[in-house]
């Protein structure tokens, strides 16, 4: 079922440079979609337009039915430095005037789901980069979003931390049936996480490839080392390099290649 339709979206920066040009795609309910492209290709702008934080100059965003509850995670943890982890995670609930006790419970639960049980009273400065990002995700989840918009959330983290967060994010999104739109410039990350990768060209940003990956539901270490993952990465990396005229051919190839990526029954977890 289509949840989000983006049609003919255009956006110029205030200095007149085109940030987005005729961007169009759809996202299905429960899908994990990555927006992949080089720095400055308008990925973040696109995400902000979808969130309703920026108005597009042309085109439109439409949700099937009412706009669902959105969560947003930035590249930086974006926490209030004077407030502890619990207060930070409770922020969306406080803003919506959820009763304090209920908010407290939901925020505590969200922190626990991200492995931060016992760190409720910790201030951001007392937490590591990865833990701060976990608080940021807990804050987004505490509000019970249907859609999670993530703007290069793990770009500043070291590789092991990043992998752990990738796995946790995937599990949490699946568990809650959350649709995720994930902006990244990492081929590896997008190939690992996504059901679909939308590849964007640099200025003006437009979608140059729409690659469906048929991913196993459970990934983890064995999948990271599998030839299927390597092939998915190759596919995505190639799309990033190919100039736009060839994109039709590539989307065709992806559709053919996708079945090969399906894992055998009972794919194992490490």
């Amino acid at each position, binding site marked *: 079922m289509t949840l989000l339709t983006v049609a003919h979206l255009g956006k110029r920066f205030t200095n007149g440079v085109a940030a987005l040009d005729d961007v169009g795609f759809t996202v299905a309910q429960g899908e994990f979609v990555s927006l992949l492209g080089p720095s400055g290709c308008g990925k973040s702008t696109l995400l902000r337009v979808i969130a309703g934080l920026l108005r597009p100059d042309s085109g439109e965003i439409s949700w099937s039915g009412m706009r669902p509850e959105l969560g*947003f995670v930035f590249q930086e943890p*974006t926490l209030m430095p004077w407030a502890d982890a619990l207060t930070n995670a409770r*922020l969306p609930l406080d803003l919506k005037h959820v009763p304090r006790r209920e908010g407290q419970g939901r925020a505590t639960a969200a922190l626990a789901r991200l492995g931060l049980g016992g760190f409720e009273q910790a*201030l951001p*400065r007392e937490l590591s980069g990865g833990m701060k990002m976990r608080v940021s995700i807990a804050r987004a989840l505490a509000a019970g979003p249907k859609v999670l918009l993530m703007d290069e959330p793990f770009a500043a983290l070291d590789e092991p931390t990043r992998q752990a967060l990738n796995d946790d994010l995937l599990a949490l999104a699946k568990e809650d049936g959350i649709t995720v739109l994930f902006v990244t410039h990492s081929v590896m990350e997008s190939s690992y996480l996504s059901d679909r990768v939308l590849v964007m060209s640099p200025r003006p940003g437009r979608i140059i490839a729409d690659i469906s990956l048929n991913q196993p539901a459970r990934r983890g270490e064995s999948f990271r080392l599998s030839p299927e993952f390597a092939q998915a990465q190759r596919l995505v990396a190639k799309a990033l390099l190919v100039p736009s005229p060839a994109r039709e051919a590539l989307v065709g190839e992806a559709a053919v290649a996708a079945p090969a990526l399906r894992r055998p029954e009972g794919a194992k977890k490490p």
Partner: protein
Amino acid sequence: MKRLFELALPLLLGVAVLAFWQWAVRARGIPVYVLPAPSDIARALAANFTSLMTSLAFTLTVTVEAFLVALAAGVALAIAFSQSRLLERMLYPYAVILQVTPVVAIAPLILIWVGFDHVQTALVLIATLVAFFPILSNTALGLKSADFNLVDLMRLYGASRWQILWRLRLPTALPFLLGAMKIAGGLALIGAVVAEFVAGSGTATGLAWRIVEAGYRLEIATMFAALALLALLGIAIFAALSALERLLLRRWHESALIRPL
């Protein structure tokens, strides 16, 4: 032990300077109306203790009142600026004009307008004008310094302007405000002193006037005693505001953190 020594270091220097001063004045036979020795100043302080303390209380009252008025007005105006760019555009130039115009030059006018019947009100007003600007400009800057991603996030969750102000902008501005308060505290004292100088004889009874008065009478030791009290007052104000800053920021702000390594 090393820490104790470091704490005592400025004190030791002070004592050494005072001792040298005492010795130099006595050894060279400098007359007391040119440069009184520390012991002469102490004697003058003891002799005029009650009246000097009354003057101290007067100056302190003017300073504290002016500081509080400047604080309230500065923060209120900064908040208004943060809510309306139009208002900021309109009023900020005048705030700057008020800041760059020497208050000594406006003071006689204010005294005439407020009237010599309400001299204390006039003094507070003059000192307020001196202390006001750093509060306004720093708080306005602080309110603008809120993480714009957090502002966006709060908007996404449907936060009202009031919620963004209360939950994000004001806490962000707090370190800026506390820094400004330390400056404004000292400025309020300077303002009070200048105002007393301008207000002149018979009306003001603060420490600054005592200095002028003692000067007329060539009671240089009393002059020094009043001066010392003024300096102590300034130090006390600064220390109190620094303590407040540490208290409010020590848990989270970089400036107040004690690094474990």
